[in-house]
């Protein structure tokens, strides 16, 4: 693996990453909070109400970024999982496995906020449309990954097995999406569109983009914290962890 830059190689060593993540986490979280404040001020206060949905549309500012993150996190998890399965790098295994709860959290938020948005706009909490159903399947996929990971006694072996499941899921997700779409047309269900107007006003749009950026920063902060903690468990026999426990464990 000569092609990996030196800094990347060094960063993948657990003690180095532990320190790096510890330094970066507050910064990521700080940016996330700042951007959330700006985005929500824009979205909840400045943006005018939607002419069709009234103020109910304001759920978009958390629903859409969460939905985007649920897929984004899966993508990251799949890349880390691929590295974990092929090269067995400890940090990649940790990143893949610690991504799963974050992704599951975003997927859960997407489903709940979608439901809360659906009731006033379509008059129903739940509809079996392609997007919602795929999102539900995605949640099950995340839960399956988490479950498989914890079913193994050996953390690293569990991480590799669950990473493999993540890769199987990558192939599966688009198939689920298209099959549900096909199924929906077959059964002639109620056609609903999540986004009312396809062209969204600038005043409404920029807070959405800011919120999307904010969730990215949040994700970085959360992942740093989780991987950091996970590395402590993985390396619990190592000197650097024992020194740390000596200092901070009392």
């Amino acid at each position, binding site marked *: 693996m000569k092609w990996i830059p030196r800094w990347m190689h060094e960063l993948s060593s657990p003690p180095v990453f532990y320190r790096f993540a510890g330094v970066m986490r507050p910064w990521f979280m700080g940016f996330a909070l700042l951007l959330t404040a700006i985005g929500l001020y824009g979205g909840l206060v400045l943006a005018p109400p939607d002419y069709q949905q009234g103020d109910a549309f304001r759920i978009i500012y958390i629903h859409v970024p969460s939905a985007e993150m649920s897929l984004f996190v899966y993508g990251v998890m799949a890349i880390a999982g691929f590295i974990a*399965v092929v090269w067995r790098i400890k940090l990649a295994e940790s990143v893949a496995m610690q991504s799963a709860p974050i992704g599951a959290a975003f997927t859960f938020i997407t489903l709940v906020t979608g439901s809360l948005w659906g009731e006033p706009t379509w008059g129903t909490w739940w509809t079996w449309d392609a997007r919602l*159903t795929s999102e539900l*399947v*995605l949640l*099950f*996929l995340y*839960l*399956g990954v988490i*479950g*498989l990971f914890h*079913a*193994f*006694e*050996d953390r690293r*072996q569990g991480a*590799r*097995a669950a990473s*493999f*499941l993540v890769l*199987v*899921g990558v192939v*599966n*997700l688009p*198939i*689920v999406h298209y*099959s*549900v779409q*096909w*199924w929906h047309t*077959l*059964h002639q269900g109620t056609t609903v569109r999540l986004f009312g107007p396809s062209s969204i006003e600038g005043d409404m749009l920029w807070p959405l983009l800011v919120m999307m950026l904010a969730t990215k920063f949040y994700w970085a902060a959360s992942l740093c914290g989780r991987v950091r903690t996970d590395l402590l468990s993985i390396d619990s026999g190592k000197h650097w962890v024992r020194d740390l426990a000596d200092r901070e464990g009392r």
Partner: protein
Amino acid sequence: MRPGSLRAACAAILRRDLLLAWRRRGDIALPVLYALIVTTLFPFALGPDTALLARVAGGVVLVTVLLAMLLAFDALFRQDLEDGSLEQLMLAPQPLALMLGMKILAHWLSTALPLIIVAPVLASMLHLPGEAIAVLVLALLLATPLLSLLGAVLVALTAGTRRSGMLLALMLLPLCVPVVIFAAGAVSAAQTGLPWIAPVAWLAAALALMLVLAPLACAAALRIAIDA
């Protein structure tokens, strides 16, 4: 020395697993019995309205068959793992994926095929019309091997863990959604007089793809899972 031929190895594995299934033929009857019980319960839950039962029959039989298969999945590698046969299989000079493919085939023959055979009985208990039953059997013939192949990959992944049937169900659900959709879609299309070839063709295409990919994935998963 006579090195073993590929065909002999395939035949040996297939014969062994079928023989083992035959020696324990009571176990073959269990999924069938399970499917029968579940199907019998539906009219009690939904009421004896013929039109209603006919409308849900295809889906009910499909899901029942799927659940019955899920029950039997755990047995796919468990025994081999416990008695060391799997290690011997991995040491054999034949490609592991192919050998696993044979095991999956044997497992399909001993668990899914009996279910397909009773499926018309189950469907007619729920008043599914004749032509739709034919399509149902065709859909099952394509969908059950697909499920066996997908399930085998997941069972291989859980091979290194303690017994966990619920986990397997959780992992299988996302994978079997498209299979259920297309298989049930074909049946309901046939029922309403629409063309049902398209979903069946999709199933066939997926099966062809998985016939190649699943044994390879299964072998890779198994290597990860026993690596402890």
